[in-house]
């Protein structure tokens, strides 16, 4: 069979539409295997508690109100830190993408700072802020800043110059050109930055909370470790996974809403 005959078949092959359930099959299978391994005693309880034990620990903490309190504190830190770091990163991305002067002034500095792992600043941050809220916010904001900055900058710089020329020919002034051409053109890249930043946001927060905090999910996990409550430790880890999924879904939803023009987001 020649390549010419095969090609249309390859093109017409499409993944079946992923509905709400398909994506949960693998996590469910893992849970079942895990439960079976614990119940049969293949995995000792002090190494890994059974999912049912974890659920029970979660229920107890939920009833006592401790769980909701800790999740809320972590969620608050994550979102405020994200907003602060994200807005500053976005602002610098815009400024440096649109203005040569601004780019010359700040880009080199930012690239140097970027190469310092922000978690390496934890000792310094503790010295500056103690284990106060501002320490966590500072770290999250710093971690979130760079992916948003870099991707906003990249998005703006790679907007099709032919479209910009078209906009100028049709008499768009700078503000209109930005609103109609540059910003929508940079948006897909900005969303890539947002999704990277969400990952870094959780990572930073967990590390910061396990090292220096008196509340939050990371603190809850560290406390449980002190008392050998392995079920609570596992529970915290699972909640991180869920929160990460929620954040990712939210950004995907926003993407689908604002990028409905993009061929990649159109329904087939």
């Amino acid at each position, binding site marked *: 069979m020649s390549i010419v005959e095969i090609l249309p078949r390859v093109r017409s092959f499409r993944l079946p539409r992923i509905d709400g359930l398909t994506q949960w099959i693998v996590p469910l299978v893992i849970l079942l295997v895990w439960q079976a391994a614990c119940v049969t005693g293949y995995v000792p309880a002090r190494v890994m508690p059974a999912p049912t034990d974890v659920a029970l620990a979660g229920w107890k903490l939920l009833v006592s109100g401790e769980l909701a309190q800790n999740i809320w504190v972590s969620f608050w830190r994550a979102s405020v830190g994200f907003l602060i770091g994200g807005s500053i990163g976005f602002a610098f991305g815009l400024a440096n993408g649109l203005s040569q002067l601004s780019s010359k002034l700040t880009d080199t500095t930012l690239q140097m700072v970027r190469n310092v792992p922000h978690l390496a600043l934890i000792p310094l941050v503790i010295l500056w802020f103690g284990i106060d809220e501002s320490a966590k916010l500072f770290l999250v904001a710093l971690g979130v800043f760079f992916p948003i900055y870099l991707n906003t900058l990249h998005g703006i710089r790679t907007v099709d110059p032919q479209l910009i020329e078209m*906009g100028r*020919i049709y008499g768009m002034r700078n503000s209109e050109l930005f609103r109609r051409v540059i910003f929508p053109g940079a948006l897909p890249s900005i969303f890539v930055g947002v999704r990277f930043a969400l990952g870094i946001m959780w990572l930073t927060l967990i590390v910061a909370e396990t090292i220096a905090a008196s509340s939050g999910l990371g603190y809850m996990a560290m406390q449980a470790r002190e008392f050998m409550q392995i079920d609570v430790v596992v529970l915290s880890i699972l909640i991180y996974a869920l929160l990460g999924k929620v954040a990712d879904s939210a950004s995907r939803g926003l993407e689908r809403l604002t990028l409905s023009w*993009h061929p990649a987001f159109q329904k087939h």
Partner: protein
Amino acid sequence: MTVQQSLRLSHADAQVIDAPVDFEQARATQARRPSEQKSRGLSLTIRGLRKSFGSNEVLRGVDLHIPAGQFVAIVGQSGCGKSTLLRLIAGLDAPTAGTISFGEETRPEDIRVMFQEPRLLPWASVLSNVEVGLGTDRTSADAKARAESALTEVGLAEKRDQWPSVLSGGQKQRVALARALVSHPRVLALDEPLGALDALTRISMQQLLGRVWHDQTFTSILVTHDVSEAVALADRVLVIEDGRIAHDINVDIARPRQRGSADLAALEGSILRNLLGPGADATGL
């Protein structure tokens, strides 16, 4: 008998005359647009136009007058400077030397350009893309209505709420044409707008272009590498070689023109021979 009348006679005869059309004969008669209506187009006068990019001189002194409402096609080999000439006329680049004047004051909306790529905003609906063409009138109350009527003119009214990405290549170019026409320009500069289309779509687009030019009576300047397109559409074909106008040929064939007719083919052949040089026949082209 006026010159105009005698010309119209020769138009009528053109269809029956089977003699080979050469440049001298074409130049001897003056082609005029067939319709009686007065043109809204602008006339265009170019004097001593030069353009260099660094040490590379692309245009080496172009002198040209285009009467109002004429359809001019510019042909030439790649890199001959035809697109550069169009960009200068459209005001997209500044000339190194020389002048381009339109005879009267022009607003930006009077001169519109259409490119080989449709250059539609992918994140705006078809209708909003056409509205972009209104220039500073974009915010006016009747913007939508005007955009809709331009879309209707190119036959795409039912696609108004679609994203450009779902349109075919030919439909995208028709939207781009509607965007260029919506401000009722007086000069339309076309930079190989049909170059990327398949042969059948290209023919129907040529008919559409010919029709809107006839209806709206703007001055039209078409850069193309397709000589048959040039002779099918234009009143006059300019052949550019080495940054100068090498030949200026009047296409003295009545409209509507029959595609593939002997007159068009003969004219196309003689232009091609000039473009490819005297050796072309020997190589069997």
